[in-house]
């Protein structure tokens, strides 16, 4: 398998009233062709900004990609002109956002929103684009697609809008789709429909996918590999199977333990992670998780632990990783 996208030492910052926020702080990850990779973490951890940086959609001037490389099929996207970048967005890399209502244009018909990209990127004639749009809507399970083309987003339910977003993302046969919390706004039964559809289409069309989510269950079901983020950094990286079986960072471990699970007997009490989520404008000097960590030692407050390889494909950024592994084994 060839590497499709490689993000190297990415730094993205935002200028706020409280100072410069390092939303993405020296982050590296990659996606192989046809693979599904997850970025997991809580609000403010930098997972969405990572995806926006790949698309070069970080809103300037407040937001800035400071440094790093984003190699897509070997080309550094950060070195492309705005013109060249436009031929990447939507054509090479598709995007699905969380809020289908706010990311669709309310005054353009469904058909127009689908055909626009086809005409611009693939130089299709309007009748060709129309035919392809019907095919796409059918593919994502929207009944009676020909009639639906004339309708507007407000005619669609939440689930249908998200199907429409998937159709738009797939329209130009991209090699990669970035899906930012694609099902968070949807009901449980519709969430299952949409995720199954995405998985099925990605497999059938051989599209690689980046899923950004806070839902550990969704990751377990759909991702091949996982990057866990906290306060702008990746703190653990592993295959999904390995991460859930042997979490090697106190934060990952804490997250997995804090959620009630339907497959396990009910516990008398949940084990939460203590403390509050990090304030990005006032991060500690050392490990950002250290104020909440049960494995904390003196060193944690002083220096940021690097992301180091433990065994094949498994990396963790924790000074006390060995102790954690021993405690887990015991």
């Amino acid at each position, binding site marked *: 398998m060839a590497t499709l996208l490689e993000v190297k030492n990415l730094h993205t910052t935002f200028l706020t009233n409280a100072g410069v926020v390092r939303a993405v702080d020296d982050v590296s990850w990659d996606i192989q062709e046809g693979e599904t990779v997850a970025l997991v973490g*809580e609000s403010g951890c930098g997972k969405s900004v990572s995806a926006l940086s790949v698309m070069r959609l970080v809103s300037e001037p407040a937001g800035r990609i400071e440094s790093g490389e984003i190699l897509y099929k070997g080309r550094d996207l950060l070195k492309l002109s705005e013109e060249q970048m436009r031929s990447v967005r939507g054509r090479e890399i598709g995007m699905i956002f969380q809020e289908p209502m706010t990311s669709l244009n309310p005054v353009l018909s469904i058909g127009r929103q689908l055909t626009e990209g086809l005409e611009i990127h693939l130089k299709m004639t309007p009748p060709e684009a129309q035919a392809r749009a019907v095919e796409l809507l059918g593919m994502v399970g929207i009944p009676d697609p020909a009639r639906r083309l004339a309708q507007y987003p407000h005619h669609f339910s939440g689930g*249908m809008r998200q199907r429409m977003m998937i159709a738009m993302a797939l329209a130009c046969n991209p090699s990669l789709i970035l899906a930012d919390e694609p099902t968070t706004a949807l009901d449980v039964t519709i969430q299952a429909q949409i995720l199954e559809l995405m998985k099925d289409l990605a497999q059938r069309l051989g599209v690689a996918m980046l899923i950004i989510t806070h839902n550990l269950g969704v990751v377990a*079901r759909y991702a091949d590999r996982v990057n866990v983020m906290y306060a702008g950094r990746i703190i653990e990286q592993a295959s999904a199977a390995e991460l859930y079986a042997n979490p090697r960072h106190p934060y990952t471990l804490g997250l997995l333990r804090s959620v009630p*699970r*339907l*497959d396990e007997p009910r516990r008398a009490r*949940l084990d939460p992670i203590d403390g509050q989520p990090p304030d990005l404008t006032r991060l500690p000097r050392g490990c950002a998780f250290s104020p909440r960590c049960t494995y904390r030692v003196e060193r944690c407050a002083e220096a940021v632990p690097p992301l180091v390889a433990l065994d094949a494909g498994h990396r963790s950024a924790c000074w006390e990783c060995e102790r954690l592994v021993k405690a887990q084994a015991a």
Partner: protein
Amino acid sequence: MSEVLLEVRDLVKHFPVGGGFFSRSDAVVRAIDGVSFSLHRGETLGLVGESGCGKTTTGRCILHLERPTSGQIIFEGIDIASKSERELRLLRRHMQVIFQDPYSSLNPRMTIGQILAEPIKVHRLVAGRAAREARVSELLTQVGLLPQHAQRYPHQLSGGQRQRVGIARALAMEPSLIICDEPVSALDVSIQAQIINLLEELQSRLGLTYLFIAHDLSVVRHISDRVVVMYLGKIVEVADRQALYEAPVHPYTRALLSAVPIPDPKLEASRERTVLRGEVPSPLTPPGGCVFHPRCPMAEARCSAEIPRLREITPGHWGACHLA
């Protein structure tokens, strides 16, 4: 079993829609269509279902924030509808609410101390400023905050801390019943467990009764003693926690449970799941017969003709399905 604190009998809430001033329209949204259940003192009753199933409207009717179209709500032995606004205010003190969004349910221009002191003042729960301040400190400590937090404004707190303030505000009234409407779904995963543990501690310490409205089935299983499942304004299943999760009788409950992804890749790979077809129909034109039949994987001819009655299938386990 302990005494019944709240009883909801055949509750119906229809919202008229469409039609301006001159054009009358007879269309109604059937938000709740004949819902009955009871809640015992000290119990947590979970109310689950997807958006539009009527779970929040049920909570709002109990709080008398919506006037029911018909049906009875009996709280502490008193029929709420028979009371005047004045008498209601007294009664309502005993039922409080915690909202989903701790960002929009706290006044941004008031300090936490003012937010908590106001209801105490209005209801004259303690006399004098010093006593009020002492009560505010006590409330803050009770929910795991510090007395110093009284001087802060909501924007200076994190989401989890704000939800703690929301809980303290409910506790200020010394309620017997708290309606928790999606109290953790807006919070980060690592904070959700903190708030759930807090709610459980407070319940055992203060003898509270909860109606816990949520869509997250794993959270509801953890916190509830009994669970009510709603679909399109109707109750489809009621049972003890264990019975509901281990032996659900309604196909909708089964589909809901199978739709929840479990954080374990091995298990997920081998898991059979029922993905429901279609979407929830509009409550403007609910389907005839069983409201679930258009999406039901087991539906038969009579499901589209006859409305299934909610009946006791095994002791204490109720289901509204012809095939159960």
